[in-house]
């Protein structure tokens, strides 16, 4: 019986068993940011410890960075966090992609961009969206701050092995259906807690055919499905993406690439569970509630609590509809929006902005809608500007901003106000997530966000942008 990628990576990084039965796992790559690391450095100092492998930790600043006048946080608390990260990196010799480096950005955009994210590696970061890096065939997961301390001090942490669920999506995606729709559909089917205890392997021709950036969108939201990590097996696309990136050793690259590819799951690998999904059934998907699994196709109506299967489900629907101020049984299409946000570690990469820019020429953001576009890194921003994408967005009435987490979690000035409703390409629609305790989030793909921004209400991008394939001429 063969091994899954998860098992191969785990075996290559297991240091030994701990007294409580967990495994001491070597973390080859550690990423840190300003929010969850200062306390860990504090603990390190309290214990008189140092950073054991400073070359294997990489830092950037993302959550608190303002996206206008990036280097001037108006908030003294944000300034203090930035200063703490600077001095911690200096004191312990950690590489820091700061605002002046031209390489700063969301940690999950920066890692792949720099070639730090590589197949067959373990990657930990005090951020649950670390699952993103699984797109490269890495086992990558979020950790708490005490574990950040453990990794800094020892480059290891205590962990229990996960089960592996292979999610096969085969068939042909319909026009206007993106990676974001695929993962929202998976989470809708399996639930927000369906992945607890699992690592997800995304397999099938749909993922094979995706670009690396699309794979990142999928893996990114594994955690929204309850899975601590998710991955796509490395292939020729993975190798091509990494070739020549700054942190990829180009000496004997062929051997490196062969080693990377050897981590892919064996054909006869054993999985704890297998789920099969037909690509053709996936439609552009949007959320209607306050949990990422509360999603529907754009053509569907908002669920009716009267039709709930259990009292618990009814209570969840009631709570979500009351918060979202949406009516049961009515179409989601046409619900008025106040804000549109394109960006985040889910959908803040070059291909996301290129795709949207293809369709918005000649359109204008609807009156009364605030639409912001936030590149995931300074490099992404630069690439977009080189291609003139920023001008396309500006001409259509979108605000073009600097790199950061922005309105995904509102630890910076980009926030919803009152009960504003935001069409968002981010990953979480929790109550209050976008900075206002009554703010409302509807998750969707970047192209769907653009369609909503232009229409002024939740719209079917396929209709607005004529994405449906033309009927064959008889």
């Amino acid at each position: 019986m063969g091994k899954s990628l998860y098992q191969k990576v785990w075996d290559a990084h297991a240091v030994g068993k701990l007294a409580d039965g967990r495994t001491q796992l070597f973390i080859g790559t550690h990423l840190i940011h300003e929010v969850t690391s200062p306390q860990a450095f504090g603990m390190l100092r309290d214990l008189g410890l140092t950073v054991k492998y400073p070359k294997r930790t990489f830092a950037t600043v993302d959550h608190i960075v303002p996206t206008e006048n990036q280097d001037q946080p108006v908030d003294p608390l944000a300034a203090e966090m930035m200063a703490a990260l600077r001095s911690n990196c200096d004191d312990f010799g950690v590489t820091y992609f700061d605002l002046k480096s031209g390489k700063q950005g969301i940690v999950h955009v920066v890692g792949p961009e720099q070639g730090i994210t590589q197949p067959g590696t373990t990657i930990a970061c005090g951020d649950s969206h670390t699952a993103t890096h699984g797109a490269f065939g890495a086992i990558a997961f979020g950790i708490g701050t005490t574990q950040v301390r453990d990794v800094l001090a020892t480059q290891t942490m205590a962990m229990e092995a996960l089960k592996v669920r292979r999610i096969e999506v085969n068939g042909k995606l319909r026009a206007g259906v993106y990676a974001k729709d695929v993962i929202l559909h998976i989470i809708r089917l399996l639930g927000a807690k369906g992945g607890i205890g699992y690592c997800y392997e995304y397999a099938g021709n749909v993922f094979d055919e995706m670009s690396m950036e699309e794979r990142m969108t999928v893996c990114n939201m594994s955690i929204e499905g309850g899975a601590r990590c998710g991955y796509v097996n490395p292939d020729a696309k993975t190798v091509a993406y990494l070739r020549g990136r700054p942190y990829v050793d180009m000496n004997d690259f062929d051997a490196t690439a062969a080693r990377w590819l050897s981590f892919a799951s064996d054909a006869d690998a054993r999985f704890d569970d297998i789920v099969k999904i037909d690509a053709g059934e996936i439609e552009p998907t949007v959320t209607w509630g306050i949990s990422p699994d509360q999603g529907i196709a754009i053509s569907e109506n908002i669920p009716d609590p009267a039709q709930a299967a259990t009292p618990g489900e009814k209570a969840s629907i009631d709570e979500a509809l009351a918060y979202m101020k949406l009516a049961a049984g009515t179409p989601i299409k046409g619900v008025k929006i106040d804000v549109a946000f394109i960006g985040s570690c889910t959908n803040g990469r070059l291909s996301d902005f290129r795709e949207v820019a293809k369709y918005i020429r000649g359109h204008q953001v609807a009156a009364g809608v605030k639409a912001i576009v936030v590149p995931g890194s300074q490099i992404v921003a630069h690439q977009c500007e080189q291609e003139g994408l920023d001008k396309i967005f500006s001409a259509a009435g979108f605000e073009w901003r600097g790199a950061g987490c922005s309105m995904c979690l509102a630890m910076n000035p980009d926030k919803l106000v009152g009960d504003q409703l935001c069409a968002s390409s981010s990953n979480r629609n929790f109550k209050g997530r976008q900075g206002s305790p009554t703010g409302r989030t509807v998750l969707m793909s970047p192209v769907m966000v653009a369609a909503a921004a232009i229409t002024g209400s939740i719209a079917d991008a396929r209709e607005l942008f004529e994405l449906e394939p033309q009927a064959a001429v008889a």
Partner: protein
Amino acid sequence: MALEKVTSLTGRAVFVPGADIDTDRIIPARFMKCVTFDGLGEFAFYDVRFDPTTGEKTGHPLNDPRFDGATILLAGVNFGCGSSREHAPQSLSKYGFRAVIAQSFAEIFFGNSTTLAMPCVTLEADEIDQLRQAVEADPAVQITIDLVGKRVRSSAGHDFPLSIPESARDALVAGRWDPIQELLDREADIAVRAKALHYV
């Protein structure tokens, strides 16, 4: 560095309703602008405890004086889902909670809580419902989480088998919930592993 052995906890409990209570709900992100975990206790469940418009206290159970001093949190499914922020269990711990009983937990929250010696144990839905009814009828009801005997008991006569992953139970009971010393002790093994990895 001897750690406390967490074998059994007894206290009054409060039920917080809802499925999929996420870490943004437990501690809204704006309160994470800090470089220490000090003072997070007062912000636990802030946006559901205080009306966002008026700032007045809401009818949230944590605002009910009958439950003042409760040290055990009762909850539903997938408690602590969402972000990896340790600020969430830190805020609950600093608020005064010493344990959480729920139908299920999100994994990162569970691990973070265990490392803080705050046990997270699971019971069946109807068992949690019975405890909820008991504490809501009489908030003085004492609940005991017995990690050695693997039971949850109450002064009202409940006695249920609890579930918790064995590694976490062992870590709590044996006083090794913070693994740092054990991780540090294996320096030689770590070096061997690091050397075998081409990318390190």
